[in-house]
């Protein structure tokens, strides 16, 4: 019992360590940022120069989702906050929440108050807030304190009249302030969305976050999954773990697997998620990662939800789907429950099947299909019609339906026949 506990402990510790590593963005992005030419160093350079030289600046961080823009930004900010503890204050806004100007100004004022231990009044008007912000900018400029505005989901701020952006950038230019505006967005063309007056005040600095190259990816995976030799994990276990890991990485099948995954999901975020799944499938009894874990993770990502839905349907529901498909083939593009029922009846009249059910049962099956989102109402306005009369459309293509029927356990042959014609 004692020996068993001994044996379980290292693998469990390793599992814990790997899981916490994979969920910690700092750990993931620091090694990727250690090169002199990386986005991290460029960003750090820009912000620190504006801090030291007391000037204004603006920059956009662009890249697909999961490529680490906010993570790298947080790394830079935390480093700078350590370097200049009194010289920086950070204001964070999110385009999803604060795209309305009133809301945004209120939030900026609130964060400034919190930062400088001032009292924030919730009933302050828009003008009050904007005057307050301009005054704060001036004061901070005089005190050589840089305010950094982080605008997440920048494309949402660029909708509408862009009043917030304009007032912010304008204030930066006119008042004697030290501010940096950092926009983060997943749209690579977000600067085209800016109005002319805003764009003229925005410096055209962009940092692109692209997915790393293949070698970098491999190095990254090795770095993340290798156990450190100096922690509280026993040394020989860690060494064997790392050795097996290296063997897996050099395996051709693994390379193929990773390539398959990365061809669809190429950002670091996706890769980390995949590794998390693989790590969580690790068998604690064996205690080491194996190729099987990665394969299981890949297959759980390659789901086909519509086929799964079809496999879950009952036979009556399949009948309804096939009837709708036939109606579509007959060029009736909008159909409702009653027309589907007439088709259903004709199928049963032509070939005497045992599946002839009453209208209320079929209506329930119809509602199940709606619930599972295999069919959907064509328009959402028709709430003053009962369910039987509202037109519906199929959300599944005929190829998927065909495949689903073929793989259905004990599918009645007549359904396949009707589909084929």
């Amino acid at each position, binding site marked *: 019992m004692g020996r068993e*506990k001994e044996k*379980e402990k290292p693998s*469990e510790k390793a*599992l*814990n360590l790997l*899981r*916490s590593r*994979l*969920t*910690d*963005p700092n750990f993931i992005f620091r090694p990727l940022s250690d090169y002199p030419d990386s986005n991290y160093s460029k960003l750090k350079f820009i912000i620190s120069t504006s801090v030291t030289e007391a000037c204004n600046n603006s920059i956009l961080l662009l890249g697909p*989702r999961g490529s680490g823009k906010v993570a790298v930004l947080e790394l830079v900010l935390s480093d700078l906050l350590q370097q200049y503890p009194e010289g920086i204050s950070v204001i964070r806004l999110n385009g*999803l929440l604060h795209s309305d100007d009133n809301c945004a100004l209120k939030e900026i004022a609130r964060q400034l108050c919190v930062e400088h231990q001032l009292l924030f009044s919730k009933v302050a008007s828009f003008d009050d807030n904007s005057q307050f912000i301009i005054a704060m900018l001036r004061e901070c400029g005089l005190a050589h304190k840089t305010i950094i505005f982080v605008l*997440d*989901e920048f494309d949402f701020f660029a909708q509408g009249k862009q009043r917030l952006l304009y007032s912010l950038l304008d204030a930066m230019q006119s008042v004697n302030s030290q501010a940096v505006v950092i926009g983060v967005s*997943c749209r690579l063309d977000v600067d085209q969305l800016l109005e002319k007056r805003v764009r003229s005040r925005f410096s055209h600095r962009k940092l692109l976050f692209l997915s790393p190259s293949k070698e970098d990816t491999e190095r990254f995976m090795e770095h993340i999954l290798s156990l450190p030799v100096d922690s509280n994990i026993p040394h020989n276990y860690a060494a064997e773990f790392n050795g097996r890991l290296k063997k897996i990485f050099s395996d051709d099948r693994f390379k193929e697997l990773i390539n398959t995954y990365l061809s669809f999901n190429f950002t670091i*975020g*996706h890769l980390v*998620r995949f590794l*998390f*799944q693989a790590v*969580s*499938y690790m*068998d*604690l*009894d064996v205690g080491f990662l194996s190729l099987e874990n990665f394969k299981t993770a890949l297959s*759980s990502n390659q*789901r086909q*939800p*519509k086929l*799964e839905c079809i*496999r*879950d349907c*009952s*036979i*009556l529901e399949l009948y309804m789907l096939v009837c709708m498909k036939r109606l579509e083939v007959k060029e009736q593009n*909008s*159909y*409702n429950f*009653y*027309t589907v029922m*007439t088709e259903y009846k004709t199928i049963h009249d032509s070939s005497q099947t045992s*599946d002839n*059910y*009453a*209208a*209320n*049962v079929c209506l*329930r*099956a119809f509602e*199940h299909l709606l*619930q*599972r*989102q295999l069919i959907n109402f064509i328009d959402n306005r028709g709430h*003053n*019609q*009962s369910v*039987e*009369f509202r*037109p519906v459309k199929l959300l599944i293509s005929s190829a998927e339906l065909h495949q689903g029927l073929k793989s259905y356990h004990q599918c009645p042959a007549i359904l396949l026949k009707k589909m084929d014609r």
Partner: protein
Amino acid sequence: MDMEGSPQVTRRTTRSCAVSSNDVESTKPSESYKPTLNDLAFGKQPFGLEDLLSRFPCRRTQILEFLRLLGPLNSPLFPVLVYGGPSTGKTSVTLQDSKHSYSSVKRCERPSDFVNYLREALENVISSLKGNSGKSNSKMSGRPDGTMMPEVGLIFISNISPDMYYLNIGYVEPIPLYFLNYTEDDLRHIFMVNQTNRKLYASFLDVVLRPFCRVTRRVDELAAALSSLFKKYCEPLSDKEVAPNEEMKRKLFSQIRPHISSALNETFQVRSQPLLGAEANKTKKTNSSKMSGILEDFDKIDFHMSTSAKYLLISAFLASRNPATLDASLFDSTGVSDSRKRKRKASEKSMDQKEMAEQELHMKGPGTFPLERLLAIFQCITSLAEDSLDEEESRELTTEGSSRGLMSDVLLQLSSLCNANFIIKGGSCPLEGSTRYRTAVSEDLALKVARSLKFPLSKYLYRR
């Protein structure tokens, strides 16, 4: 899925669950923070893996995978999306599993709850150092969640598959976990749990489960349908505890067979009261005459409506089905319906046109009518009814009083019919500005109501 052979192995191989649950139990009394509670009353302390697997008989792979994703105690968690058809046990399994390894589990139905729980949980995190786990039930669109704090784990439970949730919002994509619908064997397993007389129920299921599975595979609907059928199955047996042999099984099968198809057609109905007389009749009938028995059965509507409400329902039905121009000829002052047209031999073209028209009628559904038309038809019908009443029962009712009684609360009846979804209030016509109504009852129900009032509805219906 051989569960019986491997209980010993699972306890050892599935890892820290067995170990950590003991730890959790022993350290629980020394924790100072308040035990958080979810909405469902799962009162037990975390128990071993075996109990978990036996409570959910056919969910072994899903439970194991979920436990793997949750990880050992106190390890951080990627967001997980649990999805699958309705009544597949997602919520109960998730809650049980998380209670198993996490110390505080919360279940939220609305986003506001989630935010509140999160705030509470964060306050707890600062005072205590155990892992927390929050959940949110997202049945509508996906919710953005950009942050991923190590102490809070998020589990989303949803009815529809994740490909319906692709929004361009920067949330961490959760790891999907799929709960399949049960197969027929699984269903048999599930229904056999907690049965007193297993052999009898097994023979019942052999006969009944397959046809019912062709209609639906949801556990809740099947349970409701099968329970009433099982009572019928056991009727001829005097001793409910006996295990049936082959001969008895065959007899029971032949006895239940005619009922299966009728029960199939009523699978989703909720009986308001047992139709005792009709059941006694049914057992004597054979297969061929069963159909007429069913029709007689359905003549009765099993809910109560006042007379004026029934008339209102019929007038609404007529108003929706007939075009407005026909009202004058149908309801003229002599009260004689005039829907008999001279029958001409239908030509091929007019037959096609008729078919198209009928299809259009089916597609469009019942038409809308304004309130005035409804009241006019209602008045005509009720005056007809009173005339016929007068002919039958000479002057028993005072016509004046009863007619005023019928009219006075008709608007009240109309609003209650609207609430019961027999009449739907539609949009208003932009020119006139009054609201229009539409009927939502099927023809069968209208015929039944008319029959109960002895009103000749079919004479008034416009047939193209």
